[in-house]
């Protein structure tokens, strides 16, 4: 029987061949759809001949039963259902076989995947390992380097220390030498002094000897010849030297000394007084500078009342006659109090400095920080504004200058003036044109109006004639009918009407008359009264507004002229 341990990996192909065999076997026994099986069998399995040889190695025709049972055992141990049919015997449950195969396939896939994963991880770990090994190697190198450096530095340190020690030693040696030399010098000096003294004594002896000899010689030689005595410089007589004079001399000497000391003392007193005054002033100023710290003395313990008393005393002493007191305690008190105040001021200033430095670092007191930032921003803004304003001013100045400069140039001014004049002229021309147009229009209108008036006049005439004729007829008829005295009123009516007409005519003539009266001056002067204008407006329709009264007047005058 062949060893089974190696067959695990070959379960699938074995099964396939087995299934082949089984199929062959079963085809003999059972009725199974051959087509399906054949299809199943024809699954593309890269089965090579070697596999077949393996397959045949496990299961041959002889041991089919055994191999099947073995397979069944294995499968059942693996947890698969049995491949035998329900009933005992050698009937194989194909379905279960297939299921088992499927399960085995699935398992195989899973295992493959797991293997892949494991291999991946293995690779990863291998690369990690490599990496770590590299790092380790590098770190080892670095460690080596630093160790070597340390060794080098230590060596240098040792050298420097030894050098230092050498130098110290040298210094000590030098100092010792100096000391020795000084000792030598001092000993030599004493020796010299001693020798000098000895020589001096000898010399003195010689001098004494000489002196004696000199004095013993003729005294006459040592003399003074004076023609006559000279008076003393201060005119006094010479006085003998007595004890009194000695005493007087002493007195005078002491007087001189005392006067000198007194003078110096006066100077010192004056200086002292000035300094005290200055100190007091300083103290006052310091106190005024410091923030009021009235609570402090209270907070202190037993020293509190004592110190405040002292301060009060000092305050009392700060009066005018302070400098007259020059005793020790007062002086001490003054200096102590000033020292205290000064220390307090110093602390205060230090605190302020700390605050300022903190502000600079930006930690506390945001208000100040912000205001500073704001301040900076504002200053920047203001600077920009200033810049802009300056530029504006510059440009304006330039423009001003240009403008101012231009009149200086005669040609340009003339040109400019000409330009202005041209402009005005053109404007005026325009206006003239307009004006002439208007004038033409007005003339046209006037003409039309005059024609209309002429026609009107003619028509009126005709009308009058007709009326006259009609009246005549009427009259004639009336006269003929007078005998018929019924239509008395009608002629009055007619007369009225004719009167009316006459009145109309009269009124018009009357109207015209004032026109004629006024037209004279009108033609001369263009100015008109409003009355006239209204009259004009009532009689003649003027299209133009009242602003331009000229054409109206002229129309009127023309009207008058025509009539």
């Amino acid at each position, binding site marked *: 029987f062949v060893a089974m341990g190696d067959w695990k990996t070959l379960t699938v192909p074995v099964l396939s061949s087995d299934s082949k065999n089984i199929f062959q076997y079963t085809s003999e026994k059972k009725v199974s759809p051959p087509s399906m099986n054949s299809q199943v069998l024809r699954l593309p399995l890269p089965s090579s001949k070697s596999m077949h040889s393996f397959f045949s190695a496990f299961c041959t025709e002889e041991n089919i039963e055994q191999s099947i049972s073995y397979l069944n055992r294995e499968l059942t141990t693996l947890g698969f259902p049995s491949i035998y049919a329900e009933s005992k015997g050698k009937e194989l449950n194909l379905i279960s076989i297939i299921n088992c195969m499927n399960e085995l396939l699935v398992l195989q896939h899973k295992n493959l995947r797991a293997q892949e994963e494991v291999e991946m991880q293995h690779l990863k770990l291998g690369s990690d390992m490599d990496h770590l090994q590299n790092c380790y190697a590098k770190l080892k190198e670095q460690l080596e380097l630093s160790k070597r450096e340390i060794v080098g530095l230590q060596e240098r340190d040792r050298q420097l220390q030894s050098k230092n020690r050498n130098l110290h030693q040298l210094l000590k040696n030098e100092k010792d030498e100096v000391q020795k030399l000084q000792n030598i010098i001092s000993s030599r000096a004493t020796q010299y*002094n001693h020798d000098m*003294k000895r020589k001096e004594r000898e010399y003195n002896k010689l001098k004494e000897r000489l*002196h004696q000899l000199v004095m013993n010689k*003729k005294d006459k030689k*040592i003399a003074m010849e004076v*023609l006559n*005595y000279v008076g003393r410089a201060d005119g006094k007589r010479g006085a003998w030297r007595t004890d009194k*004079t000695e005493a007087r001399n002493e007195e005078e000497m002491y007087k001189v000394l005392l006067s000198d000391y007194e003078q*110096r003392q006066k100077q010192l007193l004056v200086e002292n007084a000035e300094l005290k005054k200055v100190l007091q002033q300083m103290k006052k100023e310091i106190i005024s500078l410091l923030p009021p710290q009235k609570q402090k003395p209270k907070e202190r313990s037993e020293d509190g009342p004592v110190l405040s008393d002292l301060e009060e005393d000092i305050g009392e002493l700060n009066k005018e006659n302070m400098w007259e007191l020059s005793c020790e305690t007062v002086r001490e008190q003054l200096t102590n109090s000033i020292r205290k105040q000064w220390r307090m001021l110093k602390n205060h200033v230090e605190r302020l400095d700390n605050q300022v430095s903190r502000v600079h670092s930006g930690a506390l007191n945001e208000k100040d920080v912000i205001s500073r930032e704001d301040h900076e921003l504002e200053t920047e803004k203001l600077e920009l504004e200033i810049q802009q304003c300056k530029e504006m001013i510059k440009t304006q100045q330039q423009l001003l200058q240009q403008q101012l400069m231009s009149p200086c140039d005669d040609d340009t001014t003339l040109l400019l003036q000409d330009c202005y004049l041209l402009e005005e002229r053109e404007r005026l021309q325009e206006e003239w044109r307009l004006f002439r147009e208007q004038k033409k229009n007005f003339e046209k209108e006037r003409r039309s109006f005059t024609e209309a008036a002429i026609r009107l006049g003619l028509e009126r005439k005709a009308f009058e004639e007709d009326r006259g004729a009609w009246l005549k007829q009427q009259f004639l008829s009336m006269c003929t009918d007078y005998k018929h005295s019924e239509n008395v009123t009608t002629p009055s009516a007619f007369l009225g009407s004719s009167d009316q007409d006459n009145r109309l005519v009269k009124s018009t003539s009357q109207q015209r008359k004032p026109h004629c009266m006024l037209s004279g001056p009108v033609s001369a002067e263009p100015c008109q009264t409003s009355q006239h204008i209204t009259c004009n407006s009532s009689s003649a329709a003027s299209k133009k507004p009242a602003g331009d009264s000229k054409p109206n007047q002229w129309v009127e005058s023309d009207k008058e002229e025509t009539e």
Partner: protein
Amino acid sequence: ASCVQYRLVVRDVNTLRILQLYTCLDQIQHIEWSSDSLFILCAMYKRGIVQVWSLEQPDWHCKIDEGSAGLVASCWSPDGRHILNTTEFHLRITVWSLCTKSVSYIKYPKACQQGIAFTKDGRYMAVAERRDCKDFISIFVCSDWQLLRHFDAETQDLFGIEWAPNGCVLAVWDTCLEYKILLYSLDGRLLSTYRAYEWSLGIKSIAWSPSSQFLAIGSYDEKVRILNHVTWKKITEFEHPATIANAKTIVYKEVEKSPSVETERLSFPPTRALASSLFSTQSKYDISQVPVSLQYIKPVADRANPKMGIGMLAFSPDNCFLATKNDNIPNAVWIWDVQKLKLFVVLEQLCAIQSFQWDPRQPRLAVCTGNSKVYLWSPAGCVSVQVPMEGDFQIVSLSWHSSGDSMALLSKDNFCVCYLEREEV
């Protein structure tokens, strides 16, 4: 007054007209006016004779013979009636009185530069003495030459003494091997001692301020230390470095102008004057920009009395300025502002400074450097004045008139008087 060999010539200051002419017995080494300007003493050290002449009575004469005692120094007393002669080897000081013809002796005077000091008011005289290798100071009353005080000075080897202008303090300083200055009061009490350092060379020169407020001490370490009169402690020290870096200091540098021969001069000059004007170069002052580096000379180390340190000190009469000269930088005069205690002006000259002196009335400094120019500085500015003389006139020293209107310029053989005009206000 001036002396030529053995003649004493007295001239008027304003006109330089010879008023008197006296003849002495021997070559005159030293002349001195008496304080009331009535007498002149002429000292002839070789002969040991001092002759005194009177201006009022030209035929009055006086001769003091020291004989074999010899004569080393001679000076007037402040009252103008006594002459103090220092005999040879500083054996003694003889005080001769012109009024009484009496003689006094002061024994064991100290053989030092400034052994006798009179107070400004002329009342007291301090004499340095040395007995048994110890220094002492004796204070005498000038009116009757009575010994007032005698005390020992704690110096190794006293070098000099000087009274303060107020006459109450006496400054006593030690040899240059030891930097020590002692201040004694008039009655002999030691007021204070000041030591700046040890072992190096010490004090070279000192000067009192006119108000006696300050005592300026110039030392070999090129520094000036100022002590104040109240505490006798150092209030500041002035350094004299070779490079001036402070921008507030004005540095005037003497610069040679190319000699310009004016055309008007060419018409009638005597040839000598023209030649001299050509040879003598004009100079003027230029203001140099700081930093300025001055010419520094390091003296030879193995010689005694080296030319280093502050050799000259002088306060101006109004107490505002202090003029100093650092011997290491011999061409420069340093003027310090006393009120601010800061360096004010530096005058850099072309030649080494010989001497300078303040005008007794105002803050005006006259400097001479051994050429024929005198240099004047005042807070308003500085000017270089050429002495109009034919030939060379090398000014070695100068001396102001007490009124401040003129000064005498001395060369080796000649002297001239320079008159300064006052500005019309």
